[in-house]
């Protein structure tokens, strides 16, 4: 639709161009306007006319007295792009021209993509962050700008990077820390900041140790507190598999960790072998000799 308007305006302008130049009717257009800033277009000649301005996001019209400037207040033209201006007197275009509206160089808003939102501790380059920088009117700022990234891990350590934007975007990669918990990932460009939270979770269990105690006719089998290789407690709900083998008979039970340990009751059979595993990590094996 906007393209159609521009085409019609352009065609009219071309048709009337020679006549208007002969009559001394013209306008002076700035080559570049910052989005959202006030600007004016100077006209020459006399009599009333209408100034049309059309671009990718907006179309404006102003009644002007030729010979006087046509003023546009702050915020009147805020969408970046290439605009066409046509001055129409009566029903004929008398002058035309084009200009660019460019984004303001002050970052006002960041679109910050941080992935993943959850990852295991101790992962090199496991966190990626990408930032798109926008001005106050939501125009992508394509001129190079420095963006600083900072990842604050639960241990207190901070990783920092400064990356210059290319075509309005900047990205970086960070390592996850050694301690579980929420890490703050902050991107900043000028006065604009955006924060994401990265959940650092424990890795696979590192050493899985269990012990066995008789409990009536049963055996109470319990793991030591289950931790990953960085010493973080493996979260409750993680499945631990216990297997008891006796005389070719096997009993298996998958139990979730509760309060840091996994615990189960299994049949007490002298000579039975009990093993423990979680995911692909195997723990110790105990041969139950009837309490001896």
């Amino acid at each position, binding site marked *: 639709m906007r393209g159609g308007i521009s085409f019609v305006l352009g065609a009219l302008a071309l048709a009337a161009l020679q006549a208007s130049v002969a009559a001394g009717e013209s306008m002076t257009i700035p080559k570049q306007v910052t989005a959202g800033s006030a600007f004016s277009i100077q006209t020459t000649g006399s009599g009333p006319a209408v100034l049309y301005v059309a671009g990718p996001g907006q179309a404006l019209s102003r009644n002007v007295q030729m010979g006087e400037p046509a003023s546009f207040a702050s915020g009147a033209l805020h969408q970046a792009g290439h605009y066409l201006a046509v001055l129409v007197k009566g029903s004929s275009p008398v002058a035309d021209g084009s200009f660019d509206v460019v984004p303001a160089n002050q970052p006002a808003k960041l*679109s*910050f*993509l*941080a*992935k*993943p*939102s*959850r*990852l295991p501790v101790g992962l090199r380059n496991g966190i990626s962050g990408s930032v*798109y920088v926008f001005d106050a009117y939501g125009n992508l700022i394509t001129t190079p700008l420095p963006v600083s990234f900072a990842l604050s891990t639960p241990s207190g350590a901070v990783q920092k990077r400064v990356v210059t934007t290319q075509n309005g975007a900047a990205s970086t990669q960070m390592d996850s820390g050694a301690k579980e918990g929420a890490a703050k990932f902050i991107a900043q460009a000028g006065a604009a900041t*955006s924060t*994401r*939270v990265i959940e650092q*979770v*424990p890795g*696979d*269990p590192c050493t899985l140790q269990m012990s066995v105690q008789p409990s009536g006719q049963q055996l109470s089998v319990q793991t030591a507190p289950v931790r990953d290789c960085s010493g973080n407690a493996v*979260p*409750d*709900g*993680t*499945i*631990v*598999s216990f*297997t008891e083998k006796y005389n*070719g*008979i*096997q*009993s*298996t*039970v*998958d*139990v*979730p960790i*509760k309060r840091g340990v996994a615990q*189960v009751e299994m*049949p007490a059979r002298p000579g039975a072998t009990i093993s423990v595993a*979680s*995911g*692909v990590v195997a723990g110790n094996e105990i041969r139950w000799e009837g309490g001896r």
Partner: protein
Amino acid sequence: MNKGGAVLAAAIFVATAAFVAIGTLHPVASADYFARGRTLLRPSSTPEAAVENLGSEIRLEQWQKAYSSLGNKAEFTENEFVHDLTGYYPSLRTYATVNSVEAHPLHATADTAEVQLILHWSTVVGGFVDTRDLHLVRNGDRWAVDWPLVKRQHVPPQVIPVNYLRWDVIYRGPGDDWGAQDVEAPHVRIVDMHPENRAEGVFVLGELLNEDVVPAFVSVRATLLGKSGATIASEGSFDMIRHTLLPKQVTPFLIRFPNADLSKVTSIRMDPLSVLVPASADPVIEVQNQKYNPAPGASLTGDLVNESGQTVNIAHVLTAFYDKTGQVIWVGGQYVDRALLPQTPVPFEIHVPEDLARRVSGERTITATYGLGDSM
């Protein structure tokens, strides 16, 4: 009407009258049954006939007639008899129907007999077999069945404190900025995969691990690719997988490609799917007394024990069988037809193909459970 048409009409009329007369005088048993409410059953003059009659009544869900025919009906009520067959608690039996009945004589004297009754039940997830060894007593010229009632299992009144873990999920909202974070999908990994060429087709088996710290709804899809990279077939694991995987839990899976030929397959593309879902760590099901019974008739038997306080209505047992190198060579499954009451063992049996039975060196069993109100 021309002459030919009149002759044809007369012939049809005469033929119809003749068929009606024949049908009335010599009706087939099933037509007679539906027309006049007569029974299809033959007199219970032999032990086999008595058991077949009982089986037919059960198949037709004629509970009153079946109960009335029993010799030991004074020992239990009709309601107990019905629930013995259809389940005391909602279970797979509740949604099953008897498809066919077999009666096999075991032993007989002049006044008593032993006959095996095999009820073939069918359900939406496949069939199961109910075998009862029946004792029969002669009463005049008729034989009456003493029904071996499986008594209702009672869990003593008690309070079981449950402090199980539960995961709830809050997803990003529709009004959030497009760069805003959403909860990460669980990370899952196929830790073992093995194609098996069999007479029925190609089977892709393996194991899937949830290596994350959150629960996952998982599924696996396999695509067989031919020499030119063209897709031969693509299938999912359907119910031969435990769909809800808790953190660090491993499930076996089996994907069937009926009528496919492994020699025509150059590669297999595996697509594990995982979605973050709310889940509960309860119920915990212990698999007790697993015993591998070698060929012939190789099977894995054991008992399921529900260690939680809630009744599990339907349980699906899945077993991965391994060879000496630890590779999965078969995945078997069985739906348990009765509900799992707290602390009450329920047996299961999973059969292993005879040609693979010799290679089995170990196994691992897990259980998928469904309760009333759960999404299935």
